């Protein structure tokens, strides 16, 4: 089992979700995060004084899937999240040691 973590632009949220459902992914977790990479932040001005904000809002997708599905999940996310402009984000793949379905107690791939 692997966890695919993807940091993407908020405006791609629905595209990515639709694409993942389209390849059979049953569930995922989405959180609102802040971050920066090469994309610069923005400047706010309050009563004449400028405040720069480096952290930009992003969306983090977390999908746990069986090893065979990983390349397809990564490619699907990358295609649906891409805009071609700086700040599109990154995808990371991490190993998962165990997974448990809370309601039934199933473990391993059966829990996914």
């Amino acid at each position, binding site marked *: 089992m692997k966890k695919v973590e993807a940091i993407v632009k908020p405006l791609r949220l629905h595209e990515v979700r639709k694409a993942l459902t389209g390849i059979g992914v049953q569930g995922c977790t989405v959180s609102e995060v802040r971050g920066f990479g090469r994309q610069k932040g923005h400047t*706010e*001005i*309050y*009563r*004449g*004084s*400028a*405040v*720069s*904000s480096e952290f930009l809002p992003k969306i983090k997708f977390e999908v746990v899937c069986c090893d065979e599905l990983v390349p397809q999940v990564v490619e699907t996310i990358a295609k649906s999240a891409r805009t071609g402009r700086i700040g599109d984000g990154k995808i990371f793949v991490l190993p998962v040691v165990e997974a448990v379905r809370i309601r039934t107690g199933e473990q391993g791939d059966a829990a996914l």
Partner: protein
Amino acid sequence: MPAISPGDTSFVLISAGLVMLMTPGLALFYGGMVRAKNVLGTIMHSFFILGLVSVLWVLVGYSLAFGPGWRHLVGGLQWVGLQGVGQAPLPAYASTVPHLAFMIFQGMFAVITPALITGAFAERMKFSGFVVFTILWALLVYCPVAHWVWATDGWIRRLGAMDFAGGTVVHINSGVAALVLAVVLGRRKDYGNGDLVPHNLPLTILGAALLWFGWFGFNAGSALAANGLAASAFVVTNTAAAMAALAWCGAEALHRGKPTTLGAVSGCVAGLVAITPASGFVTPLAAMAIGLAAGALCYLAVLLKWRLGYDDALDVVGIHGVGGTLGALFTGLFATTAVNSTALQGLFYGGGLATLRVQATAVGATALYSLLVTLVLAKVVQALVGLRVTEEEEESGLDLSQHSEVGYAF
């Protein structure tokens, strides 16, 4: 025996209600500009003062401010607990409304003045110190200055100085006190690291709207009668506010390329502050000039604050101190007997420099007195009770540390 006028009485009582609304309006105006962890603590300052000063005013404040005076400096204790203050009019001040109506109208001014100061010490004031300081300041600074400028035997009023609704008593008084407290308390921990941004500007804008609305009661109500002068004050109030909002936005556009909503509402407040002393003495066109000057100058004053390095968190000095001074002096330029027969002619109406000098005396005396006494009070309260929260309390925020509450339970 003067007769009570239903029109005048209803107007004064409604105006008192409008001025009352300005204090919660101020609470929201300030509340939106601080960080979320301090929103309740900031609002609490204004709301608590509504309770505190309302009670003080009835017990002793009104007597000290407007009671028969001692050496033209302060009222006595004849009206303690409002004894002698009844339903019959007090002809010296308002001959056609009940004395109680005049008293409560004035009381709302006594409430909002210390509330204005709270903007300077936002996000770091200890609640107990704030309560003790406010009680002392209301009685020892607000009441005497109100007596000087508005009581019939007050020495500044006897000089002929014109302050229709409180440019000196309310704005310069609180503006100077704000500067003292900002310096005595010191800067916020997070000053300069870019974290000090408004957390809820829509709340601030709502507050500004309530202030603009309430200010009609503040200025027009100061005519103490439902008459032509009240209408004139109403019109110049709106005109100055409008012009100042445009002027501040214009200054921002020139300086930073874009007008902002915070700028628009700050500008309108600056205009309202500046027109306050002038509102019963100037024409609508003069009000435009006053608004234009206030919008531009108060914007510059706020920028200057960063250069000078004091942490007046919500710009009480730049808007109320500078705006009030500007308004009081411009009254010396634009006042005319054509608007108000009791006026001294301003410089632009042939009054020469004499009028300006009288206005400057009022400004200087108020500023100096507020500076000195506020400094003494601040130091005394700092020593006996403490003024500033601890570092941990400032970090976790006033809402939790001072009140065990959270503003937004998302």
